[in-house]
């Protein structure tokens, strides 16, 4: 008899595959559509075996026409289906940005609330695998700018398993950003749905001196940085945003009213980015709780380079987080672009 919080070990791709399988088994409105999701089993092998199990009608390989098949996903959702559209990586989603922004995000408003788009779009995101500039972008923050969309980013394997359900149940379009690095990572997955609300952040590690605010691929980096900081006597709290739109201000502000210092860690670029948005919200809502300026650790302001050592130097790293934390604890403003 398994107790309700017994867990099982899974990789990121296995967790998302199980999520899709269970969704399709329990609701025949749900179907999967995307490039190479069927015969090939998914570019990152997330949907391996699903074509045999559900057949070509519900696991649909598409031509390389992002605008058309994302638009078709929107239309099918308007038509009463609950599609899961996989865009191979966020880098290709730019071809479908017109459909995502001008249709998916906006139809409900233009129609005075009559037309909803209950669609889930999954995209791989993030760098670090030497795929060079056009395959390594982290544009999760961009999409967080658009009213009408809901944006989530699983950082734990448990979230890879349990975010899809509520996303499919949502009457509005939800985009799930899956960091490619986590597909191969293993983690604990609870047997039953923990029922954690899609739009709430989670304190992954409690601490009292400093709040590390991050999401997705950089969550493991922050947890490691927090462990290192602990050896120096600095107890860092790690907040996993989970949702980039809406942002769970309450959890962030509650944390900062206890730690009084914050570092936002985002694999996107610093300029005009998500990290700036979070820093602004902290300034607006917790200014008088701050004992140091909010610091940001982001990817260097360059397209990601191919060489591994350069790519690692550009991206947020444990060292850069620990160094920034040390300076924040002294109340220094950390404004350097790369810092």
């Amino acid at each position: 008899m398994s107790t309700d919080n017994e867990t099982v070990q899974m990789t990121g791709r296995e967790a998302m595959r199980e999520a899709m399988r269970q969704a399709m088994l329990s609701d025949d409105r749900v179907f999967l559509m995307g490039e190479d999701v069927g015969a090939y089993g998914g570019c990152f092998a997330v949907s391996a075996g699903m074509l045999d199990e559900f057949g070509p009608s519900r696991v649909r390989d598409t031509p390389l026409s992002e605008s058309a098949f994302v638009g078709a996903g929107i239309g099918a959702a308007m038509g009463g289906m609950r599609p899961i559209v996989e865009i191979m990586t966020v880098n290709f989603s730019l071809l479908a940005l017109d459909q995502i922004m001008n249709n998916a995000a906006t139809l409900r408003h233009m129609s005075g609330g009559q037309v909803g788009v209950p669609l889930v779009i999954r995209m791989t995101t993030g760098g670090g695998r030497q795929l060079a500039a056009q395959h390594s972008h982290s544009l999760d923050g961009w999409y967080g700018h658009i009213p009408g969309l809901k944006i989530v980013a699983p950082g734990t394997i448990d979230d890879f398993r349990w975010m899809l359900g509520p996303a499919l149940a949502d009457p509005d379009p939800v985009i799930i950003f899956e960091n490619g690095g986590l597909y191969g990572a293993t983690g604990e997955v609870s047997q039953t749905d923990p029922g954690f609300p899609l739009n709430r952040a989670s304190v992954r590690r409690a601490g009292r001196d400093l709040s590390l605010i991050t999401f997705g691929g950089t969550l493991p980096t922050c947890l490691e940085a927090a462990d290192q900081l602990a050896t120096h006597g600095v107890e860092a709290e790690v907040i996993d945003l989970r949702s980039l739109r809406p942002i769970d201000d309450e959890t962030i502000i509650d944390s900062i009213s206890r730690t009084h210092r914050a570092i936002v860690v985002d694999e996107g670029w610093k300029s005009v980015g998500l990290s700036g948005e979070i820093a602004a919200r902290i300034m607006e809502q917790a200014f008088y709780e701050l004992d140091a300026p909010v610091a940001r650790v982001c990817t260097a302001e360059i397209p990601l380079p191919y060489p591994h050592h350069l790519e690692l130097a550009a991206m947020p790293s444990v060292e850069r987080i620990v160094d920034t934390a040390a300076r924040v604890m002294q109340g220094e403003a950390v404004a350097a672009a790369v810092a």
Partner: protein
Amino acid sequence: MSTLDADTRSAMLHDMVFVRRFEERCAQLYQQTKIRGFLHLYVGEEAIATGVCRLLRPDDAVVATYREHGHALMKGVSPESVMAEMFGRIDGCSGGRGGSMHLFDAEHRFYGGNAIVAGGLPIAVGLALAEKLAGSDRVTTCFFGEGAMAEGEFHESMNLAALWDLPVLFCCENNRYAMGTALARSEAQTDLALRASGYGMPAWSVDGMDVEAVVDSTERALTSIRAGAGPVFLEFQTYRFRAHSMYDPELYRDKGEVAEWREHDPIHALFDRMVADGQIEPDGLSAIEAEVDAEIERAVDFADASPIEDVATLERHVYAPTLEEVAR
């Protein structure tokens, strides 16, 4: 081409006159600043919306463009709600939020105008995909101008629809000008039906100024689609008698060409044939116009009386209302 019986003809005549007078009244209202923003009028192309929509079932879906008044009215969206929408009032078919370019009516499955050229095509393909997966024989009709055919989304949508045998009726309203660019200056291959056939779907050209030809072709196309044979592409040759929109000085075409096309006015073409067949009195047109004008005036009064939305509900219609908001 079978000629239609008198009742059908007079109904279509009434519809075309209604759309024509509705659009002309909008032009006037625009000048009185009652309608703002962009306004694209359907004057001259009435036969297509009248002919095609007449054959659609209430549960068929329509996706149109920003030149959509005729399609909306012929698909059953009430003139009052269309006019109120252009006045930006809460009784508009989109609650006042969309305006002329974004008329929506879920009940009549009219899925809006789309202000992005070819932006509606992928959606139509999707709506048809849903029907296919649900195993229904409902058709999704997608109206667009010839300008859309230069967009990548046109190519991707046509290919996907053909590839998956989806129940889509692609209706290209070729009015010869994409805003200020003549067809020959934007398309290497100006035989649009020939291009469409390249995707492996039936495609032919139709005289968009002859409403009976429109009806005939649409009937054949719908029969094929409902039988599951996949999408059909119809190119309707037509002409807009007024500017692209209210801001357009029309420098790109000469007045002679416009006069020549006015000779093919779809309303007069049908009216003359009905008079010749003794189905209507030679002065019958003015009676229809008077009746239509009165109906349109009621729509204008309705729109004028409809209140504007309170700013307090500004942030509504972005996401689905939560249970509490619905209860409130």
